[in-house]
């Protein structure tokens, strides 16, 4: 019963309890430790969220009206595959005729350039020519990942015929 009525502090005139300063020190130390741990947790969570965000398939690929008008395609995904040795570039066909010309230009494939370091690749293996591209369907290139130029979680720039599409997330 008495415990429910004990005030938070000692009654007036009562000797100061010895443990108080120690409790304050402990509290500050404990709070500091907790704060460090919380910061560490938040840091890890933040890094993880950042990494997840970089690898998030829902993160939109930037669009370029200029590039889409010129090439007839919209880049939809860039992903490092083949255990790091290959890169797939997927694109949606918007204009069948332009897209067919773009896909057939095997001597001038788009260049994939890392925005994180010096490094690029333009060695591409394309889908076989001859099939009929369909508007709205997705097709792809497979690149050799030259010297590990692109890495998952970073951004890349795609260059083709003087056009650039920047900040493309690499999955």
């Amino acid at each position: 019963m008495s415990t429910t009525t004990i005030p938070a502090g000692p009654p007036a005139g009562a000797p100061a309890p010895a443990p108080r300063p120690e409790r304050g020190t402990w509290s500050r130390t404990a709070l500091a430790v907790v704060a460090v741990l919380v910061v560490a947790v938040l840091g890890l969570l933040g890094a993880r969220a950042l990494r997840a965000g970089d690898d998030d398939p829902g993160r939109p690929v930037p669009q370029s009206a200029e590039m889409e008008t010129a090439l007839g395609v919209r880049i939809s995904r860039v992903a490092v595959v083949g255990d790091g040795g290959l890169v797939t570039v997927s694109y949606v066909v918007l204009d069948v005729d332009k897209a067919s010309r773009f896909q057939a230009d095997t001597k001038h494939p788009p260049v994939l350039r890392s925005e994180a370091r010096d490094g690029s690749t333009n060695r591409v293996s394309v889908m076989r020519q001859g099939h009929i591209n369909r508007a709205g369907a997705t097709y792809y290139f497979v690149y050799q990942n030259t010297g590990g130029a692109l890495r998952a979680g970073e951004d890349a720039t795609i260059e083709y015929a003087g056009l650039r599409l920047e900040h493309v997330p690499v999955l």
Partner: protein
Amino acid sequence: MRLNRTRARTRDAASAARLRRRSGILAAVGALVAAVAIGSTAGAQAATSEGLLCQTDPHQTFSLTARTGYISTPDGNSIYMWGYGMSSGQFQLPGPVLCVTSGQPVTVILHNTLTEPTSIVFPGQKAVKANGNPAQPQLDTGGSLTSMVQAADATDGSVTYTFTAGSPGTYLYSSGTDVTKQQQMGLYGALVVRPAGAAGQVNDRTDSAFSPQHEYVFLLSEVDPEVHLAVERSQPVDWSAYNARYYLINGRSMPDTLAPNNASWLPSQPYGALVHIKPWDAATNPLPAVIRYLNAGRVSYPFHPHGSDERVVNKDGHALQGTSSTAPQDLSYLKYDIDVMPGQTVDALMDWRDVEHWDATTNPIPTQLPVITDQLLVGADTWFSESPYLGTKGSYPANITVNNECGEYYHVAHSHALQQATNYGAAFGGMMTVFRIDPAAGCPTS
């Protein structure tokens, strides 16, 4: 004084409580830090993993749930599917690869969330029981077959199958109810039975040993999207108009087959199909890889790995060997095209050997940079790495540092029924992947 003592005891109790609370907070925060750190590591490993992802359990007990879901195809389509997934997980295609040991009891508990009954048959396994009774065909009151085995009721039913794992090898497991429809919808998976005490062998023969780090499952199947659309809309299926448009390895089509296990952009299709090896070497790399082929489709799939034969050592869970009980003859054989029939499984060992002993200095062969063969995915037998010398890189244009990571080779592997190597008719795609061969010294950046 009494009051003070009481207060002192109360303060002590309160301090102890605070200490417990603080300790609890510290422990919780510490656990959280550890969990996040471990989770981060595990996530990073999962994102780059390749090869077989085995589902194991010390009691060989697996709880599967039949669910609906969607898969993505490389041409941008989204297909309504049914699939077996771990009950603790989510929808996936194909079902989990269940890895068990021969001669040990296996329990598979099937939960059904579909709107019709479903079941699992385990072809090749003997004396399978369902809810403790012999698994056997089910007939309605008119004598018509309703299911190959006892099924789990629609919506929330369940059934428990038990058996003793049979001879070592690979087996398909799939729906035994309305088989044509339910298997087409995606109700299938792979069962890998390992030899007791010899997990690094395909079967009980020592010459079936493989490198455990290079074990792969290629579960082959196909999809007619019109069937799936009809099922999704609860409309009747016109089987006379059946026409498969997508061909899958482990639930994925090229180029998604090249993506790692658990790729973030394929959340329902967890298994990749990249084979990644190094050249055979008697001293440093003597064991081959193993590829376990299964056919969950309706037609034969003539799977053709470029650049190397494979040695077929097992079919339908049985070693290819003679009948002698003392020294059974080795009946394995090399094959350039692995024909996998519907419902069949084929286990094949593969390695890559430099039989010509190419050497840029001591055994050079003329080479000319091909104009087009590195431009087309299929058009040459290999994906030319611009040097015949594995790991040796030639000269390159000024703007190119190297042409690949480390001079590795990529060999295409695909169904040789070429309509099966397309995505809705667009070549190439479908039932296709690559085999990657790294130089013996490895590839530093991979």
